[in-house]
């Protein structure tokens, strides 16, 4: 390339640019094709799927979904409901307690503060699998197996949430604001609820979306804790279809079930992608 003279090089730029856009679009196609195939096949009958792939959707989506309920006796809508209850509750706890904990760490000087913060940062490095068997027996001892509690309560202690919101507080909230509120006679908890919480909404919103998606997608936790079909979350039900006969005879039904499990996340992604992407990038840079 370096042997070309300058004018030729400059002429080449538009051609190169065209090729690069083509490459990028191919990557986009690779990213969405599996989902596209899923959506098309979710609408086709077993016979249509067995006869080959086409790009044209058919009209069997509801029929496919119903056959999961009728033949495998798995209620996917109940799974969606369970997932929603767990993900919503867990997310609310994460949003509130991450902010409260971050506030406690950022604006009060108590003994052992740095030690405690270092300890939670250390735990951020520990993968979920390390404590999972202990987590199971703790839940069993508390009588919480096959309930939603072990999947919701731990969200009070979301390490990344505290870390992320504390960073944000440090950059937007000044101590003088809190001092002023104190002079006006506001109590400590009122200051947090009425003054601080509204100011950190951008950071809390990012954590809310990320926590919701993480809880919605969680598989290992529910797999250990939830035992009966009426309590299972949507990812667990999708996984349990592996052994179901309908999933082996009727791929249309399986595609439809998978599509149903993915659609809520796709909707959230379409609405909130801006927050998700910026949350991830900024979280990474600060670490």
């Amino acid at each position: 390339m370096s042997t070309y003279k300058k004018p030729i090089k400059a002429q080449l730029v538009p051609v190169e640019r065209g090729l690069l856009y083509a490459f990028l679009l191919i990557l986009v196609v690779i990213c969405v094709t599996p989902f596209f195939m899923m959506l098309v096949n979710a609408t086709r009958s077993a016979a249509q799927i067995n006869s080959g792939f086409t790009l044209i959707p058919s009209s069997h989506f509801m029929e496919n979904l119903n056959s999961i309920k009728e033949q495998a006796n798995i209620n996917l809508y109940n799974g969606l409901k369970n997932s929603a209850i767990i993900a919503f509750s867990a997310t609310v706890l994460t949003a509130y307690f991450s902010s409260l904990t971050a506030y406690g760490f950022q604006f009060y000087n108590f003994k052992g503060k740095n030690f405690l913060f270092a300890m939670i940062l250390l735990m951020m490095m520990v993968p979920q699998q390390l404590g999972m068997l202990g987590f199971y027996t703790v839940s069993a001892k508390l009588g919480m197996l096959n309930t939603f509690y072990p999947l919701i309560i731990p969200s009070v202690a979301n390490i990344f949430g505290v870390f992320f919101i504390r960073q944000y507080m440090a950059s937007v909230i000044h101590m003088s604001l809190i001092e002023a509120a104190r002079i006006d006679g506001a109590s400590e908890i009122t200051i947090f609820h009425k003054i601080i919480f509204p100011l950190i909404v951008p950071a809390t919103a990012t954590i809310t979306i990320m926590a919701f998606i993480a809880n919605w997608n969680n598989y290992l936790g529910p797999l250990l804790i939830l035992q009966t079909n009426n309590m299972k979350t949507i990812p667990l039900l999708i996984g349990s279809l592996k052994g179901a006969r309908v999933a082996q005879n009727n791929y249309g039904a399986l595609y439809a079930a998978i599509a149903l499990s993915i659609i809520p996340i796709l909707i959230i992604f379409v609405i909130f992608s801006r927050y998700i992407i910026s949350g991830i990038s900024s979280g990474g840079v600060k670490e």
Partner: protein
Amino acid sequence: MKKRDHYGYIFIAPFFLVFFVFLIYPVLLTLFYTFTDFKGFGEYNMTGLANWQRLFTDKQMGVAFVNTWKIWGMNIVVQLGLAFILVFIFSDIVWKIKAVGFFRTLFYLPNLITLASVSMLFRILLDENHGAFNQVLFNIGLIDEYIPFLARPFTAQAAVALIQAWMWFGNSFLFLMAGVTGISKDYFEAAKVDGANRFQMFGKITLPLLKPIMLYVAITSLIGGMQIFELPLLITNGLGAPKDSLLTMVLLLYNQAVRFTNFGYGSTVAYGIFLITIVFSIIAYKIMYSNKKQGGVN
């Protein structure tokens, strides 16, 4: 400590209560189980280091270790390769490629989808009888007969690795690109004036300045890669088929603990995976910060 500083304790108390009960205590309890023959319920005996001895002589653990690394290795080459190509393209000051936001959003999409659904989706897309991939490849004439992707050890491992890469390259790209936007444009302009070509700029400016983020991406990917579980559990029979090729370390841990009700040994496998992860994270750190001339994962 001022008078009102004790409110700090009150505000962090709920966090720490839950933190100790559901995070610290389970991790310590799991460590304790490694010295027992606990089944997950009922009575147990102390067994000393028996589980640990078994861990180091267990052929299955050896197989799982090699499989996990093979899958992660294939994945990371594709994942980081693509991410670096994208960074190279988007950071170039002559090409000026637009719409970064659009592309990075779509590249990130596969990462957000429920892993259980992704696993089940590829299980049927790659099916040897009526899988859409085989049908499409056959229709466009790339193959003469359907390939049993998930029934052959190598293609099964490659499939899982490529699915992982597909899910994570957008994430790696996002992190690396966030680092690139932090690099002053002046460096590139100055290098251009000095007659540097784009490969020199990428190698001498972009890569060295991205080093901390590269380390972060490498280590988080390693931690995630060592934990690979849902895909090998759901994409074939859940026991590591075909021929144990998808038996990964966490799948072994899960099967030992849940299927064979051996919490003692399962816990030891969990700690084994953790130790392996720490050791290799330290090695990754050392490699990155001792290599003075180029500073690349490659």
